[in-house]
């Protein structure tokens, strides 16, 4: 292992990337993007071995890619909350569920909410809010939920916050299971709308249909790139610097005039909105939303992605999301062992490499500082 890490260090990819001229970076990004777009059709050996549908019973490759990208969106959002602002949110699945359910409740002609609207205002049978209008509704609801959850709880100490957010995630799930009049309870909601698009000329199917999975993948990829770009802008803005200051030392940040509460609330709300977008894409692709899809384990999985990848580092979080979604799909026979492996991986990563696989440099230095402090105290004894 040390040899590998030495080799990795001597390549010094990060440094090279940062000092490379703009045109080199643009070409490399372009090539990476082209590869990402081409992935669903990958058919050249030996590269095709990464496909998940080679063996019988393997999962649909485009479907897996879509899930990976949706989870990458989740990781992007959760990275804002955990990695940048340093708030441990164990109820992130709640926002994911809110996204999926907002779309289902307003967009599906079968949901109790659209029925209620139709009855109330005498609208025609089968009326529902169009997909494009559902997106801002979902984002608005998630933002509101983020603020409603965050406002009373963000003043709490870090570990209390974790437990309360976990409670929030469970409450959302229990409400979606029990509130029959609002969410159809355990039966779920069918006919969740898909994004608009031209009809397929050959089959007459809608543009986004369950068979042509690659279209979903491309859509999600586009959304992911847009969100990465937005979050990047935020990270290097005044808001991003404030998050960093709060994460490192909230009191010192307060002395410097950074309002901890305000920026934590920002992080929470932005994270919530991104989580809702991911949930919305998930619900739309499934065209069916039901409560068991949002169990608490999913929250732990999301946290595991960010933390194993390297919290605070966007590339790390994306890499974590990729690993955690892709590996169990590729090695399907091991899928029952998935939670066990997460547990082991979480403990090992935290003990051996608390900064994550691809760490955020500043974060790694913070941890190193604390370790040195502890050593100093130990030698003083």
């Amino acid at each position, binding site marked *: 292992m040390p040899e590998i890490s030495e080799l990795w260090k001597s390549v010094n990819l990060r440094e090279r990337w940062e000092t490379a001229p703009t045109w080199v970076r643009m070409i490399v990004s372009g090539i990476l993007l082209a590869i990402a777009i081409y992935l669903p059709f990958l058919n050249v050996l030996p590269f095709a071995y990464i496909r998940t549908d080679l063996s019988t019973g393997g999962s649909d490759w485009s479907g897996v890619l879509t899930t990976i990208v949706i989870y990458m969106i989740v990781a992007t959002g959760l990275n804002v909350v955990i990695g940048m602002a340093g708030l*441990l949110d164990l109820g992130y699945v709640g926002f994911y569920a809110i996204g999926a359910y907002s779309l289902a409740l307003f967009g599906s002609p079968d949901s109790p909410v659209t029925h209620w609207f139709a009855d109330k205002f005498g609208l025609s049978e089968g009326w529902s809010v169009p997909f494009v209008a559902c997106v801002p509704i979902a984002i608005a609801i998630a933002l509101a939920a983020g603020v409603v959850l965050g406002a*009373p*709880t963000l003043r709490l100490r870090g*570990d209390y916050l974790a437990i309360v957010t976990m409670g929030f995630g469970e409450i959302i799930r229990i409400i979606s299971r*029990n509130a029959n009049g609002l969410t159809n309870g355990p039966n779920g909601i069918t006919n969740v709308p898909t994004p608009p698009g031209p009809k397929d000329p050959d089959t007459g199917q809608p543009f986004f249909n369950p068979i042509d999975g690659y279209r979903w993948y491309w859509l999600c990829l586009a959304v992911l790139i847009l969100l990465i770009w937005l979050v990047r802008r935020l990270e290097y803005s005044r808001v991003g610097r404030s998050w960093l200051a709060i994460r490192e030392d909230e009191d010192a940040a307060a002395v410097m005039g950074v309002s901890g509460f305000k920026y934590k609330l920002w992080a929470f709300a932005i994270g919530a909105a991104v989580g809702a977008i991911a949930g919305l894409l998930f619900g739309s692709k499934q065209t069916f939303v039901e409560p068991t899809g949002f169990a608490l384990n999913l929250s732990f999985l999301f946290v595991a992605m960010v933390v194993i990848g390297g919290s605070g580092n966007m590339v790390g979080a994306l890499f974590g999301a990729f690993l955690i979604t892709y590996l169990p799909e590729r090695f399907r026979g091991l899928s029952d062992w998935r939670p066990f492996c997460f*547990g082991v991986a979480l*403990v090992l990563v935290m*003990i051996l490499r*608390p900064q994550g696989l691809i760490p955020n440099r500043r974060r790694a230095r913070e941890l190193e500082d*604390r370790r040195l402090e502890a050593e100093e105290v130990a030698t003083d004894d």
Partner: protein
Amino acid sequence: MNFHELFAHFGDITVDGLTKGSIYALVALGYTLVYGVLKLINFAHSEVFMVGTWTVLGAYSLVGADEGSGVGILIIATVLGFLLAPLASAGTALAVERIAYRPLRRKNAPPLIFLITAIGCSLVLTETFGQALHAIFGPPFGRAAVSIPSLIPEKEWVNLSWIAISNTQILVIVAAIVMMVALDAFVNRSRLGRGVRAVAQDPDTAALMGVNQDRVIMLIFVLGGAMAGIAAMLYTIRYDITKFDIGFLIGVKAFTAAVLGGIGNLRGALVGGLVLGVVEVYSSTLFSSNWEDVTAFVVLVLVLMFRPTGILGESLAKARA
């Protein structure tokens, strides 16, 4: 809002809540002890309880005890359960501290890292019973719920017009209170207990006074684990069931109980546990049992918002200096 039901069976429901609450209280002790000394939420404590319930099942099958077996075997099995469950739970708690927490303490890791490690441990433990042991030994391990023979048949000991109390309810409540009193006396009066309080108050000064910090930390994990083991035994006597993920909800509720009573405060755990048990049972009677699990979370949020130090205030250190 089913007020009629609540008032018609007020006594029974209250006793039921107190029984539940006693188990929460015993589990809450583990959270409170560790928090009091290390300022750390030991998220894996719920699985320590879970291991206890499985150990009870193991102890019963070891002596071949079943619902129909003779009195001698029943007594042996019960005593064995009361001995082995705390042992196994304490062992699990100790293992978690040695394997996962100690390396982190050496590095002075921030609380977030501890919490994530604890989640990892908790996953490993649940999956050990849900998956790994199932793969090796097959049933009863696995993801399905397993029933545990109820060796003590349920009998009504008190039966008045307004209240009926069964033998297991009395056993659970009395055992829980006895254990709490014993632990309280241990921490407040014994030499080792004084060490615990000293480390909780000021680790550095305690070290100067010759208190071995690592040993105290191991001691609190063992004590908390043993209490969770007793709770597991009582739980199986009362509810006759276990499952690989049984710890999660009980853990969350016990943690809520600890915070409600004032985390870090031993007596607070008892008060918090009993109050939470009763509130939960009332609310599930008033609304429906579907909403029962929401109660704990709502109570937790309300307590943290309005009185974050809980009913009795947080302090293991100031218990009785």
